[in-house]
């Protein structure tokens, strides 16, 4: 293919990425947008296959076939509740690809590549390898293969500093000499660094890590674009870099923390913190029948889903309950906290899977004033996002904006125990006079409530 035509087609691909992302601004156009971006990617791939002097098509084709099959299979099979893990895995693969490309470029680079090429190669290996191993640890934590608790290694600081020192030295040597052996040293130390730096981060902070790594891998792609003079890479990399940074920022802001705090403070743990039993305060335990009656005779209900809904896969049961209530002319809406669950927009996807129309889903600012005029706030597997301690000083979540569920006339909480959520702190909401606790797995509990309402 003539290189000018190729250049314009790459530009077209980049434009399709932009238009695709623009369409993500509304659920109505988002599907078309994602497809446009995919078409852009297809164009970029085909142009590359035709444009470059490919000598060994079979390696490329084999890679595409194998990778495509695995990717398609994973995409079809994954449970919606496992979305954070899947994105972590994909992100790691992307990072690995960048790192391997850079090493391969170095090997076949021939005599004396210019210094700026070497610098970018070093950068790609560094970022790509950290992304690969860091994302894999994130995957493990989210999939419960590794404990979600922060795993601080003995001598953590020393290990980190040594690994970082080796990596930086190796990167500098790659830049200066271009010798392949340093690239392997860099690869090894960066992989190790990705592992040791991710283990001490709590499981629920993994989405921040993934998003941050995704942003980095966008920047690495852009850096590669500088080397091989590819505007498609530069533009796509800049878009991804921006998107990752914005998402990271949304998450840390919604948790009222900083990125540094997330990455370096060994915060939280799935099962950490108080268990709420050794309290003088008492929580009021309710049966599924009690809950059924309260809900069935309410006029306005707001459902607050949280991470427990995802764990229990209770989205369909929640939808069934809401349908039943709506048939009885109870108004049902959903309040979605920006960091409910384990990734931004997590609850929206789960509820969409259960066919809950997205116009029944409300953002924090939009629904908070309404809790005061609401009969029942039904909290399903959420904890931190409704913890009133956030309004007080000196707690782990102080200053984090929360859903004002405690303002509702009656609060019903469906969870298995009084134990704490991700932030590892007790929740006074459970002990309020107007709170009823339904101790159950979310799915089982909601199913029981549905049967009880049917029998009313």
């Amino acid at each position: 293919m003539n290189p000018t035509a190729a250049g314009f087609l790459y530009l077209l691909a980049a434009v399709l990425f932009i238009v695709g992302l623009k369409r993500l601004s509304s659920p109505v156009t988002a599907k078309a947008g994602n497809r446009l971006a995919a078409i852009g990617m297809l164009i970029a791939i085909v142009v590359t296959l035709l444009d470059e002097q490919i000598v060994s098509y079979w390696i490329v084709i084999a890679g595409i076939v194998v990778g495509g099959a695995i990717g398609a299979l994973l995409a079809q099979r994954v449970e919606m509740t496992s979305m954070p893990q899947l994105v972590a895995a994909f992100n790691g693969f992307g990072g690995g690809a960048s790192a391997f490309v850079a090493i391969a470029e170095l090997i076949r680079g021939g005599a004396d590549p210019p210094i700026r090429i070497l610098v970018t190669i070093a950068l790609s290996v560094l970022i790509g390898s950290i992304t690969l191993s860091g994302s894999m640890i994130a995957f493990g934590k989210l999939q419960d293969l590794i404990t979600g608790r922060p795993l601080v290694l003995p001598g953590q600081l020393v290990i980190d500093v040594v690994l970082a020192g080796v990596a930086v030295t190796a990167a500098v040597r790659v830049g200066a000499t271009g010798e392949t052996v340093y690239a392997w040293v860099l690869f090894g130390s960066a992989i190790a660094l990705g592992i040791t730096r991710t283990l001490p981060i709590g499981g629920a902070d993994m989405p921040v890590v993934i998003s941050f790594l995704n942003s980095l891998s966008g920047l690495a792609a852009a850096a590669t674009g500088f080397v091989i003079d590819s505007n498609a890479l530069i533009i796509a990399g800049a878009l991804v870099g921006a998107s990752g940074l914005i998402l990271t920022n949304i998450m840390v802001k919604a948790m009222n923390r900083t990125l540094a705090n997330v990455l370096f403070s060994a915060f939280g743990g799935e099962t950490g913190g108080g268990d709420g039993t050794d309290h003088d305060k008492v929580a009021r335990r309710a049966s599924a029948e009690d809950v059924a009656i309260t809900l069935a005779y309410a006029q306005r209900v707001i459902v607050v889903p949280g991470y427990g809904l995802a764990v229990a896969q209770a989205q369909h049961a929640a939808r069934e309950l809401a349908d039943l209530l709506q048939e009885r002319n109870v108004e049902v809406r959903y309040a979605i906290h920006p960091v409910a669950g384990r990734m931004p927009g997590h609850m929206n996807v789960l509820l969409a899977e259960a066919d809950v129309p997205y116009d029944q889903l409300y953002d924090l600012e939009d629904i908070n004033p309404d809790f005061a005029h609401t009969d029942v706030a039904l909290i399903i597997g959420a904890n931190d996002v409704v913890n009133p301690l956030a309004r007080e000083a000196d707690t782990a979540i102080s200053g984090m904006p929360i859903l004002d569920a405690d303002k509702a006339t009656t609060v019903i909480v469906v969870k298995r125990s009084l134990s704490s959520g991700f932030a590892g702190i007790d929740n006074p909401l459970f002990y309020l006079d107007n709170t009823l606790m339904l101790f159950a797995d979310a799915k089982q509990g909601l199913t029981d409530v549905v049967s009880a309402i049917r029998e009313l």
Partner: protein
Amino acid sequence: MSELLIPITVFVLAAFVGFEVITKVPPTLHTPLMSGSNAISGISIIGAIVAAGHENGGVAAALGFLAVTLATINVVGGFLVTDRMLRMFKRGDR
């Protein structure tokens, strides 16, 4: 430096576009945004194809194959799973 002027210009403009466009994505769609932009970051598949296609064997070819495979998983899986999610989003007036 002078050869960097053009790529830096392109990068700066694309970053502005990115920030403007992404900040308009509503919270509802943040998970698809995350997986979709992750798929776009798989653009490094271009580099992988070049690396794999220029070799007939040896370590570089093996690395190239590995890179193409991983990048394709990222791209294909990312776009497909985003599509799967987005197909689930429905409006109320059914």
